[in-house]
């Protein structure tokens, strides 16, 4: 009981089939109260289906789901008072101003936040009197967040809050979502951007083809897939030909085992490349050997660069065909 009380969301073995299509095949997920969790996965992975089941907007085929201690399939108005929902690609009625829409929606709740306060929270105070059809994409999204917050919820769902946004609008939306933290709200957001998940969330849950494939912080996920780092330098400074046999093998050897990653494609460096590269998990050993070879050749190897695996590499490794 005491453990359950700490969990805002608890999902076990969730499945959803549409006829023969299995959109979600056994999702397990738990989100603690006050946590910000990103539900990360490519398009069609089952993110929206899962989240809409948690929101009580979709039925499920099987599995156990508890959201704020209630099965969303039995959603009551009481329960809906406690959650806020931002749907994917939310649009608003264009003839109303931002303030009017918030006021209209505040009537749906028992003890709503004042309209001015909500607009302030999402940074739309200056646009209060603007018709929503004149709001930018980022502002429209912030208005959608405002509508999710007007009932003063404990838990907020955000489905792909920045998909299709330009960088400025994305940053705006990120600021708003980050602001939810100070309200102490539990947040479950879906995204197909690894950087967004890393930027906003305490924890990332990765879904691929209807199944959870990883769960942890960005650093933990990177460690979990143990992607190699990339070591490269200028061939003019140190020709690959002078390297030891072991290092020369690494130039192509490591790359072959990781066909699905961005790192692999560059690691398959041909000798004619201007920058030979080694993809390795033993960065220290390789560097020592490489620097020793450089000493032997009488070069300082100033062009040496070490690139740790990117978020993208980790994401592709987690959701791709490999691993």
């Amino acid at each position: 009981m005491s453990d359950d009380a700490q969990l805002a969301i608890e999902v076990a073995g969730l499945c959803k089939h549409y006829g023969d299509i299995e959109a979600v095949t056994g999702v397990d997920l738990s989100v603690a109260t006050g946590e910000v969790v990103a539900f990360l996965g490519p398009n069609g992975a089952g993110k929206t289906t899962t989240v809409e089941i948690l929101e009580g907007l979709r039925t499920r085929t099987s599995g156990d789901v508890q959201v704020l201690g209630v099965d969303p399939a039995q959603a009551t108005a009481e329960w809906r008072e406690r959650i806020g929902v931002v749907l994917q690609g939310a649009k608003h009625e264009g003839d109303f101003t931002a303030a009017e829409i918030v006021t209209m929606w505040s009537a749906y709740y028992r003890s709503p936040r004042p309209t001015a306060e909500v607009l302030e929270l999402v940074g739309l105070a200056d646009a209060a009197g603007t018709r929503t059809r004149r709001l930018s994409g980022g502002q429209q999204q912030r208005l959608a967040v405002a509508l999710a917050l007007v009932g003063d919820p404990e838990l907020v769902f955000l489905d792909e809050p920045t998909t299709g946004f330009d960088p400025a609008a994305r940053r705006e939306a990120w600021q708003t979502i980050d602001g939810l933290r100070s309200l102490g709200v539990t947040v479950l957001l879906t995204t197909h951007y690894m950087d967004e998940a890393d930027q906003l969330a305490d924890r990332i849950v990765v879904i691929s083809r209807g199944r959870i494939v990883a769960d942890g912080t960005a650093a933990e996920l990177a460690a979990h897939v143990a992607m190699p780092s990339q070591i490269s330098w200028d061939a003019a400074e140190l020709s690959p030909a002078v390297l030891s046999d072991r290092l020369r093998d690494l130039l192509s050897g490591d790359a072959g085992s990781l066909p699905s990653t961005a790192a692999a494609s560059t690691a398959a460096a041909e000798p004619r490349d201007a920058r030979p590269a080694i993809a390795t998990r033993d960065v220290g050993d390789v560097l020592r050997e490489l620097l020793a070879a450089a000493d032997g050749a009488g070069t300082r190897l100033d062009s040496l660069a070490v690139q740790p695996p990117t978020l993208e590499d980790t994401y592709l490794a987690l959701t791709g065909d490999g691993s």
Partner: protein
Amino acid sequence: MTRLGQLRSEARFNLLGFRRSPAATFFTVVLPIIFLVIFTSIFGNEIISSTGARVATVYVPGILALALVSANFMNAAIVTVIRRENGVLKAMRATPLPPWVYVGGQLAASLVLTAFMTALVIGIGWLGYSVEVQPGAVPSLLITLGVGAAAFSALGLAITCVCPSEQAAPAITNMCVLPLYFVSDVFIPSEGAPRWMTFIGDVFPIKHLAVALGRTFDPFSEGVPMPAWRWLILAAWGAFGVLVTLRFFRWTPRN
């Protein structure tokens, strides 16, 4: 907020949205008045020898029927499809607002519009064309307006089930009502029309609304007009609308 407060808020914002939509205000408020002026100008406002009543006695209730259909059926359908296809209804489903309050708010707004148009059309008929509601017929008029508004609002929700997109909604709703106006005593009296035309008019609800309204303006009608079976047909169409809505209504956009 209390349920009553929610209903009032929904109705208020529905009316505000209506006022700010040029298309909705033109088709529901301006166009019926233009029709009234055009028809009475073309046909004059003489006393018709066969009935002894003025020409406008036919057009005032006809145009009132047109305005009622527009305020309830057309508006409910078009606004609902726009909200549905933009995901507004789906988002609303995720709030504690009960669906019946949403529908009730829209109905309340339609009733206010209907009352406004009734006052406007009757006022113009009285001041401009010497057509009056018969004092004894006021209860009958109110019943007809109430039953008609409820029935056409229900049919407005029902028709959204066959409107795939917000672009299709105005076309489909107009396709439903425009041809019917010509066989339903709205634009022209159906007396003397071919039998198949009067039959079509009798099947669908608009003619029953127009004729029931017409009875309340007829200076020679005997006693209190009680077009009970026309009310029943209107109510039956309304019930059909409710059943279709309950069975097929969608809260979510097509895509």
